[in-house]
């Protein structure tokens, strides 16, 4: 089944009654602006997404088989997963809890009663002949999340957008097929069969591939933050289907023919597949050709979408209620009754209060507490452990300069931890050493170059001296002696008269301030060095 079990949804954008008129109006206005921004030669695209996220559980959705990635072939298969007669599905509590948690994180209404249905397929990697899913009454519905859209090459102007979630359903994954066209057979591994998936279905709220990609990125961040999914797209833990339609600007979106792109497994791929499809539609439409309502696969290597021929036939899924599973009921503090056994109760209020903060909550908190910019918050949220490290450093001394802490953490410390492939909290530069270095920078007693040297000592030389002692013993204190810097400057001027000439005539800046820093092993105060060079050589003015 090439492992997506998506299906077409109604593509009409129906505002929920709960949305106020004001909200609908502002959205419509904003929508109009976005359409014109993303339109190409009079055409615009509308995109809806279906994301299949593997639930981070130890065992499968309805069986006790394991869920490890890349386990030995066919070794994580229970009798139920192999569809042996006489087996029955039993719901994994953790999967239902994670479904509820995800619903809450995506602002959804959690249905107090949800049901399971069978959806029929004939595929060798689906031994039951059907997938257990939730078609009529899914676990969660009608959500909305904000996400940030950073314009390419312009990290300074993120736009806050919002996407509505149609619903979230729990369902089984299929097995994996390896096609061997040469020997004319396919090889089936059932390890993935029956693993728990959440299908997260959005409204058609995206106007470009980039917007859809930005949403998937935010969703990935949310799911990993709350521990619902590993989010590793390369392992297939998150797979994206996009439904794309293209219409003339000004015409209703329903005039575009919908095409579904299946199984995109990278964030860049989401943007590229949609943009490719947008262009393909435009070129066909401009030639007066018709768009086929079909399913296409994304070829990441050649960056194009290909028609999936075996999907041409309209599926008849023959949905029917799953008779072996009574409804899943979710309780809250009000509806909780004492005659229910606690291990058989999922309480939505309990889950809400024990949930990790969502990325949006964390961003807002960081912005409010430290005045960090949105981009900086985003960087902090997406590189693991940095937020805790940053907070710990700031908590130890709240007067520290946030800009210096941020700069030292992201420009210097992270370059070391990334190179050594260790998390920030396992760094040899602990919070105390980092904080001491920050304080020396704040009081202008060392330069950034020296800070880098200090970290280099800790990482490469297994040095364990306290920061001040190291700086003292190595004689790394900042050079603020103007006469010493002037000496260096004079020397440089005497050495390269050509550079001096070019500088003075406005051809090329001499860059002596950098040379002075290098000649002092990074100890010269760079601001002072620049000032001295300017005093001796004059300010560089480029000749027109």
């Amino acid at each position, binding site marked *: 089944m090439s492992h997506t079990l998506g299906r077409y949804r109604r593509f009409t954008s129906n505002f929920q009654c709960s949305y106020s008129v004001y909200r609908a109006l502002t959205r419509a206005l904003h929508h109009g602006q976005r359409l014109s921004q993303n339109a190409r030669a009079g055409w615009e695209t509308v995109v809806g997404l279906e994301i299949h996220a593997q639930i981070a559980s130890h065992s499968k959705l309805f069986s006790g088989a394991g869920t490890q990635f890349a386990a030995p072939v*066919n070794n994580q*298969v229970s009798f139920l997963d192999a569809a042996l007669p006489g087996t029955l599905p039993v719901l994994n509590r953790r999967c239902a809890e994670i479904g509820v948690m995800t619903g809450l994180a995506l602002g959804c209404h959690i249905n107090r009663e949800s049901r399971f249905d069978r959806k029929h397929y004939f595929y060798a990697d689906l031994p039951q002949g059907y997938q257990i899913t939730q078609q009529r009454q899914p676990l969660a519905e009608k959500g909305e999340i904000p996400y940030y859209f950073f314009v390419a090459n312009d990290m300074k102007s993120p736009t806050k957008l919002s996407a509505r979630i149609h619903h979230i359903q729990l369902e089984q994954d299929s097995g994996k097929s390896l096609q061997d066209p040469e020997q004319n057979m396919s090889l089936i591994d059932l390890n993935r069969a029956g693993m728990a998936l959440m299908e997260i279905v959005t409204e058609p709220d995206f106007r470009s591939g980039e917007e859809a990609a930005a949403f998937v990125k935010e969703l990935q961040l949310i799911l990993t933050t709350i521990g619902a999914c590993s989010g590793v797209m390369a392992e297939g833990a998150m797979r994206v289907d996009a439904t794309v339609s293209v219409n003339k600007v000004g015409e209703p979106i329903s005039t575009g023919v919908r095409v579904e792109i299946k199984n995109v497994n990278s964030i860049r791929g989401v943007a590229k597949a949609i943009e490719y499809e947008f262009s393909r539609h435009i070129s066909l439409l401009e030639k007066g050709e018709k768009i086929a309502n079909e399913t296409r696969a994304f070829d990441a290597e050649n960056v194009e979408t290909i028609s999936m021929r075996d999907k041409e036939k309209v599926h008849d899924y023959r949905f029917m209620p799953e008779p072996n599973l009574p409804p899943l009921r979710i309780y809250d503090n009000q509806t909780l009754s004492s005659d229910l056994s606690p291990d058989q109760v999922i309480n939505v209020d309990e889950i809400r209060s024990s949930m990790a903060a969502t990325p949006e909550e964390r961003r807002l908190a960081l912005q409010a507490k430290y005045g960090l910019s949105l981009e900086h918050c985003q960087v902090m949220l997406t590189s693991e452990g940095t937020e805790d490290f940053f907070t710990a450093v700031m908590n130890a001394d709240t007067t520290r300069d946030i800009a210096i802490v941020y700069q030292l953490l992201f420009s210097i410390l992270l370059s070391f931890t990334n190179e050594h492939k260790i998390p920030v909290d396992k760094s040899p530069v602990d919070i105390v050493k980092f904080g001491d270095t920050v304080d020396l920078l704040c009081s202008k007693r060392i330069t950034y170059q020296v800070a880098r040297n200090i970290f280099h000592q800790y990482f490469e030389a297994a040095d364990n001296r306290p920061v001040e002692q190291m700086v003292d013993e190595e004689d790394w204190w900042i050079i603020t002696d103007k006469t010493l810097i002037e000496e260096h400057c004079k020397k440089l001027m005497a050495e390269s008269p050509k550079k001096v000439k070019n500088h003075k005539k406005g051809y090329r800046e001499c860059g002596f301030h950098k040379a002075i820093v290098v000649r002092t092993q990074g100890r010269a105060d760079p601001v002072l060095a620049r000032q001295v060079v300017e005093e001796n050589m004059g300010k560089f003015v480029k000749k027109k």
Partner: protein
Amino acid sequence: MTRFYVNISKMSTWMLTLNHRCLSSKVPAKPTWKQIDPSTLPKPTTIDEATISHLERLALVDFNNQEGIERLEKAIRFADQITLVDTTGVQPMDSVLESRNTYLRKDEVTEGNCKQEILKNAALVEEDYFVAPPGNIPLKKKEKSYRPKT
């Protein structure tokens, strides 16, 4: 529907002769009969060739001949009687257990690690994989017609 009641009646007669009591109050002790006017039923369904090949594909069953089609049409005709039952205000029922909650299992690995047993069922195995026919190949479309020529 008529046939259904006859069967039930046979069963309850059998139970009565054996035990002289009715085991379930929901099962009528005596059969009831009701003549159904065929004109109140929906129009009889005729099955076209496309439907047959679609059904054959779904059910992986070959209808094979005209007799099979007639049997199917008769079965649909028989089932048409159910449309006469008044279900206004009655919620459809998925299962007799739907007033209960689904059982919740602890998230523990208790099964699997039984590759040998699982693969015992395979007709063909290669490097621990099940071997299946390639891709999703639709059943070959048959060219023969089941409809008698008129």
